[in-house]
């Protein structure tokens, strides 16, 4: 009897695998990195959400802050403004990027690598920089302000031009990818059926890239709506959600209202993010089909047209950049055209001086090193770990979340969380560490996805083989996983470095007099009317980011050459 009872009980509960020491170690590590994400992301966001339902004394007031918000017409008007800027920027950027991407993938225009490189430049500058250039070009004393026919650059026009500049590379990358997966066989079939080129464009080309266009649209919209740099510099009286947060917090010290606006800003960003995720899944399905690569045929007229177009876009980008560099080099553009470095005497201005530049480099280096370690190892544990399914799922969710959280919102959340007197972590407040942590967290998602993609391309059985050979997982991690993923690891560290150099939004709430940053210095010098020094500092950021990018290029080339013998197998 007892035996049958035992058997019955045994039947009821499934067998539990005994954990190896590897499994235990991996679980410990995933808990550690998971704890990082909880502390650096989930808890600050929670602190911010709860702040929005508290009054300034910390008492619970329900939704009354929200009611107050929606009763203030000036604030509510910003929602409309933000959506307007976001939508117009989306339409313009995606259109420009689509034609450019089309030229890059479907024409035989000369100089593609140069034009592609130029089109990527905006990634290397803070979003404040185009605004500064526009002031010199179209401002009240702008050298070509007649071109606006009496319209004011301060306001939606300036913001939208700046956002188009700032978002162009992001849209371009996505659309180029979408266009390059086209299947040549479809075009051959359509041509064989004697479809006109217009008909082919509308029946083959456009449907093929529709997910790419939608995805690009959402990315651009999110960036434009949540960007803070452009409206701050050139927005004038045209208020948007992002500047409202800044004004409520920095200007009026009204943290509760800042929290409310943050939640409002979180909604379109989060919405765009989740729709984009859905669309991306469909895009992947398109990608997996076996396509024959499309080789564009030469066509003199079309190629020249595309070349002319690429020249115009490049002129726009280089013009903005060149304007800043000119303004920085002349004593007082456009009135005193004596060349000199007086605008580089940052120590004489607000914003922290040259120290802020070196702080930025320090901060970006820490972000690159520690960020890459955390992100790559975290992604590895999520991909290859065993057990703890729920925790790994939660980890994955937290890793995707920063994409949906605008930088300003994250920065404000950090104030609320790390400045709490009861929080033992408040020792971090006003340190370099909090800047690094916020930046890693802010740019976590893209880095995590890069790492995950690289890890997924590896044979899923490596770990099984290693276990059968009784090798500890970390040996395989260092001897196989890391070497195979080196290109992705480099990409992640460069991405983090460049973004840490250029970001303003999260860190603007978190720097201290000892940890001023170059990008924030651009903001503060511009605020104080030192526009030329702001341009000079902005260009310093550009040169640094560009230098690191070039370094990265040669480093990757070197690694590629060195590992050529074995990498062939991964590519095919």
């Amino acid at each position, binding site marked *: 009897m007892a035996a049958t009872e035992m058997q019955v009980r045994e039947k009821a509960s499934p067998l539990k695998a005994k954990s190896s020491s590897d499994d235990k170690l991996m679980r410990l590590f995933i808990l550690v990195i998971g704890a990082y994400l909880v502390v650096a992301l989930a808890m600050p966001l929670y602190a911010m959400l709860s702040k929005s339902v508290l009054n300034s004394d910390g008492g619970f007031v329900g939704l009354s802050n929200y009611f107050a918000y929606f009763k203030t017409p000036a604030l509510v008007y910003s929602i409309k403004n933000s959506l307007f800027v976001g939508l117009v920027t989306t339409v313009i950027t995606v259109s420009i990027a689509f034609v450019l991407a089309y030229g890059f993938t479907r024409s035989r225009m000369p100089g593609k690598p140069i034009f592609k490189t130029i089109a990527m430049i905006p990634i290397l500058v803070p979003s404040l920089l185009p605004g500064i250039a526009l002031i010199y070009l179209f401002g009240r004393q702008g050298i070509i302000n007649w071109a606006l026919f009496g319209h004011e650059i301060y306001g939606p026009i300036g913001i939208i031009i700046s956002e188009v500049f700032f978002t162009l590379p992001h849209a371009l990358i996505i659309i180029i990818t979408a266009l390059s997966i086209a299947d040549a066989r479809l075009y051959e079939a359509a041509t064989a059926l004697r479809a006109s080129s217009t008909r082919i464009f509308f029946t083959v080309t456009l449907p093929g890239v529709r997910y790419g266009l939608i995805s690009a649209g959402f990315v651009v919209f999110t960036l434009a709506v949540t960007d803070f740099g452009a409206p701050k510099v050139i927005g004038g009286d045209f208020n948007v959600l992002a500047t409202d947060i800044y004004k409520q917090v920095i200007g009026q010290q009204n943290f509760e209202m800042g929290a409310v606006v943050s939640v409002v800003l979180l909604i379109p960003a989060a919405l765009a993010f989740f729709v984009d995720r859905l669309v991306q899944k469909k895009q992947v399905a398109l990608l997996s089909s076996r396509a024959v690569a499309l080789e564009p045929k030469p066509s003199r007229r079309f190629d020249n047209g595309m070349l002319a177009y690429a020249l115009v876009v490049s002129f726009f980008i280089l013009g903005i950049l060149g304007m800043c560099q000119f303004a920085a080099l002349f004593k007082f553009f456009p009135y005193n055209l004596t060349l000199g470095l007086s605008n580089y005497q940052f120590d004489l201005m607000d914003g922290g001086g040259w120290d802020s530049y070196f702080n930025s480099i320090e901060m970006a280096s820490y972000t690159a090193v520690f960020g890459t370690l955390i992100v790559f190892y975290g992604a590895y544990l999520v991909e290859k770990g065993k057990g703890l399914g729920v925790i790994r799922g939660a980890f994955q969710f937290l890793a995707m979340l920063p994409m949906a959280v605008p930088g300003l919102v994250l920065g404000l959340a950090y104030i609320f969380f790390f400045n709490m007197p009861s929080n033992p972590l408040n020792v971090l407040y006003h340190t370099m560490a909090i800047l690094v942590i916020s930046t890693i967290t802010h740019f976590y998602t893209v880095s995590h996805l890069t790492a995950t993609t690289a890890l997924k391309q590896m044979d899923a059985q490596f770990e099984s*083989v290693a276990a059968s050979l009784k090798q500890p997982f970390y040996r395989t991690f260092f001897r196989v996983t890391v070497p195979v993923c080196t290109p992705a690891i480099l990409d992640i560290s460069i991405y983090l470095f460049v973004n840490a150099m250029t970001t303003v939004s999260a860190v603007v709430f978190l720097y201290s007099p000892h940890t001023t940053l170059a990008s924030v210095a651009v903001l503060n010098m511009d605020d104080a009317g030192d526009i030329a020094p702001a341009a000079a500092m902005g260009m310093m950021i550009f040169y640094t980011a560009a230098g690191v990018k070039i370094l990265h290029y040669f480093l990757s080339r070197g690694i590629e050459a060195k590992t050529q013998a074995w990498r062939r197998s991964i590519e095919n």
Partner: protein
Amino acid sequence: MTDAFLRIENLTKNFGSFTALRDISLSVLEGEFVCFLGPSGCGKTTLLRAIAGLDIQTQGRVEQAGIDISVLPPSERDFGIVFQSYALFPNLTVEKNVAYGLESRRAARTEVTGRVNELLSLVDLADQGKKYPSQLSGGQQQRVALARALATSPGLLLLDEPLSALDAKVRTHLRQEIKQLQRRLAVTTIMVTHDQEEALTMADRIVVMNHGIIEQIGSPEDIYASPASEFVAQFIGTMNFINVVVASANQGTHQGGVLKFSQDNVSQGESARLAIRPEDVEILDKNNDENSDKVLGKVVSAEYLGAFLRVTIAPEDWESNLLADISTDIAAQFVIEAGGDVGFRLPPEKILAYQENK
């Protein structure tokens, strides 16, 4: 008989509400080469992964060399494994791949090199050690994976569809090579495959699986000559099936008439399926009435396959066609051509009978 080296008892594996393996029990002897054979989704790989500890079973016991390893993680079991993808480390040379399991065992360097060289010559790749996996052909990569799995002299070798990524010619060659190697080393081996030819040529014993259960365990000859179930009968080799109602003992009726069979494993009055291999169909002179069980039919098509002729016959009044393999010299005695008449009989002792599954 010696004790089983690997013993699996009442093993069940559920994925959510789906049962991938249902109450599997089997034993593997030391040095034996066993194939898990079945269509995709039959649970053969799931069973292999449970034996390796990669995906542990929901219920049941796995015992290897007298030790209960049911819940042990892979690293605490004693096996080497070769996957369909080989999973060779791309950034390590062939030598380093093979040495991967040896190095950390604190073995002396020269000892490791010696062992690696020994293994590489065992798989006939002695001169390829310095190359990277991507520089080798598929068949060579497969042998590197085999050498790596054998390097630590595991008690059990697991092969998960090791040949299916290769083209046909290499596959046939490697079949023999693996089999010889296995015999030489006398390592207990389990191979998962969906390819019956692979199983029939390589295995000492075949475990035929379907829908998470074992349909039959037996030697290749057993499995081919006396399939234990209708599934095995139609999965292995080519088989003709005829639906009948069992009229009386050893007699089945169908619309084409009466068929005699010698098996008595089906109950009277019920429907059954009779089965016969094409090579067991006997061709008769259509004009000779000596045989009472002669059936007449029309030749639908006749394919010449070298040693024999594969003839598709449409017997008079039958539901479906019948395949017959006729050796070329017998065929020469008759006129067999598409559209012509033909006579044949189904020898009762060659007919297999299966109760119709309801």
